[in-house]
């Protein structure tokens, strides 16, 4: 029998959803606004999309952001996986507590502090050894890697402790050398965690404004930096169009992920039934 739903709970749900999605909805609607002033409706138009695709500035900022995000995600996943392996698999080593603390510190460190300290580091390094000569894509990428790898390490560590050590022991017991065990057992099992870590690092980097603002140099503005500076100078509606495109991309991504998940679940159920019938 269907239970009668509580009106109170339903209205709270609606309010919450409205709170989350009305701003996005408004943004999408206003991206089709003809008027040059963001908050005044001037009829339906796609002129801002045209102007968006013609805007050199926005495209180069987007490309820069994507480049940084991809390189960052890749390096952060590599280093973070190594750190996670050390955290989860090397039980006792000298300075373990210190290492654990230092790995997770960037997670709780205010971004302003991280950004400022990295800026100081780059300036000092530039004075001492002449590198980095000027700040830009390299320094932003390095800064992003330093904090993203902490997130990856945490994901990998929890995934590893979830998998447990028994499978690796079983492989050793069957005569596999430790490197083989790593390649044939640990890494394949870790792959979903590494993918999750990569995606998280990618998103974090694409999202970051504060740290990038500290360590970037002239001529290298990431997309969040560009949007923020536009807001300060007065918003042009082509930013709305850009935001709509981003929302669309994210929505498609989420839909695909959901579709894959549902398919996997159905497959699992079929498998379970198959195993159960015998």
């Amino acid at each position, binding site marked *: 029998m269907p239970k009668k739903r509580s009106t109170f709970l339903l209205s709270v749900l609606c309010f919450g959803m409205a709170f989350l999605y009305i701003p996005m909805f408004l943004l999408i609607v206003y991206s089709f606004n003809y008027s040059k002033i963001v908050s005044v409706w001037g009829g339906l138009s796609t002129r801002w999309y045209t102007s968006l695709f013609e805007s050199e500035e926005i495209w180069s900022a987007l490309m820069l952001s994507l480049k940084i995000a991809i390189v960052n995600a890749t390096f952060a996943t590599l280093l973070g996986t190594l750190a996670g392996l050390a955290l989860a698999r090397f039980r006792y080593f000298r300075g373990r507590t210190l290492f654990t603390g230092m790995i997770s510190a960037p997670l709780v460190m205010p971004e302003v502090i991280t950004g400022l300290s990295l800026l100081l580091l780059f300036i000092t390094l530039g004075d001492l050894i002449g590198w980095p000569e000027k700040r830009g894509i390299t320094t932003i990428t390095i800064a992003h890697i330093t904090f993203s790898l902490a997130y990856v390490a945490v994901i990998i560590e929890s995934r590893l402790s979830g998998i447990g050590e*028994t*499978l690796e*022991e*079983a*492989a*050793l*017991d*069957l*005569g*596999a*050398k*430790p490197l*083989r065990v790593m390649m*044939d*057992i640990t890494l*394949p*099992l870790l792959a979903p965690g590494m993918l999750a870590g990569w995606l998280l690092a990618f998103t974090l980097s694409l999202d970051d404004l504060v740290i990038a603002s500290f360590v970037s140099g002239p001529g290298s503005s990431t997309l969040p930096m560009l949007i923020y500076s536009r807001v300060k100078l007065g918003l042009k509606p082509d930013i709305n169009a850009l935001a709509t495109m981003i929302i669309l991309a994210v929505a498609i991504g989420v839909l695909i992920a959901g579709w894959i998940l549902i398919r996997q679940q159905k497959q*699992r159920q079929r*498998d*379970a039934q*198959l*195993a*159960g019938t*015998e």
Partner: protein
Amino acid sequence: MKQYSPNSPRHSLPRSEAEPLLEIRGISCNYDLERAVFDFSLTVHRGEQVCLLGPSGCGKTTVLRAIAGFHPILTGSILINDQQVSAVKNMVPPEARRVGMVFQDHALFPHLTVRENIAAGLDQLSAGLRGESVGEMLDRMGLGHHADRYPHELSGGQQQRVALARALAPKPLLLLMDEPFSSLDQELREHMGQEVSDMLKESGTTCVMVTHDQNDAFALGDKVGVMSEGAIVQWDTPYNLYHQPQTHFVADFIGNGVFINGQCEDKKQVNTSLGMLQSDIALDWSNDADIEVLLRPDDVVYDPEGPIIAKVTRRAFKGAQIMYTLRTLDGVKLLALFPSHANFGIGDEVRVRLDVDHLVVFEQNSVVD
């Protein structure tokens, strides 16, 4: 039938009796920085199946892991096939020991099929030989139809078979099993225990199993070592462990039973509140020594003419038999196993007699052993 260990031909058991395959010489191990195994020694001969039995936390798994090479030892040494594999700060790594282990939760590789799981230990063989070997194992374990399935698509018993097949495929010198049946339900457990036991005996595989379940231990172990607090308390056949336990702990841990107090008289009988009990052998106690006698449930016999009157306080139906918990008029608790047709309810009065021939006797309050 194929022989699964080249070093343990099954037709020459008498000769191999004398050949120790596994020798553990006085090892000690820590677990989580606390001493878990104390000066532990054990010798297993070729073709023998032995079992370490004990409550959780008694160090049995630590011993097994030390044999497999996963756990360092702090004193003593371990020899497999006359080669030292573990000594203090000198360990042969697990992958070089030729030991096959069946893990508690099977530890099948979830991303590999049954066939690939079984082939995992056969790297050194050529592709052809490997396929042959895997096919043979699949047939032997009755897994032929499931070769291309993944572990999560198999039932518990099938997973168990895959785990065993994977451990046996590389023809290890020694098979280790850590609570192999603990994830199976009761019925399957007994069935698998029997099946595995037959298979190991047939192939002459030397095997060490650890378990906390005495039924598993008795199904598989020619010899069973009862462990407590990191050491073997009694090393014996299942029969002797049940009928001639040497300490209070073993008597209590193996099988059911109660202890009743009494005094020794004339070295051959014990005066208890339930009457005089005769012993078939001379008792090594002085007259009037305060001792306790072990009464197994099958020592308490239903007899309408019996001298002891007791009330039923609990009953557990076990099919052909019913296990009763009784309380005598003096308040002594007894366990009794009656044939199922002697059916009583809780609170009923029952007459019983004691039918004990071999007395198992300990000093009173010897609980601390």
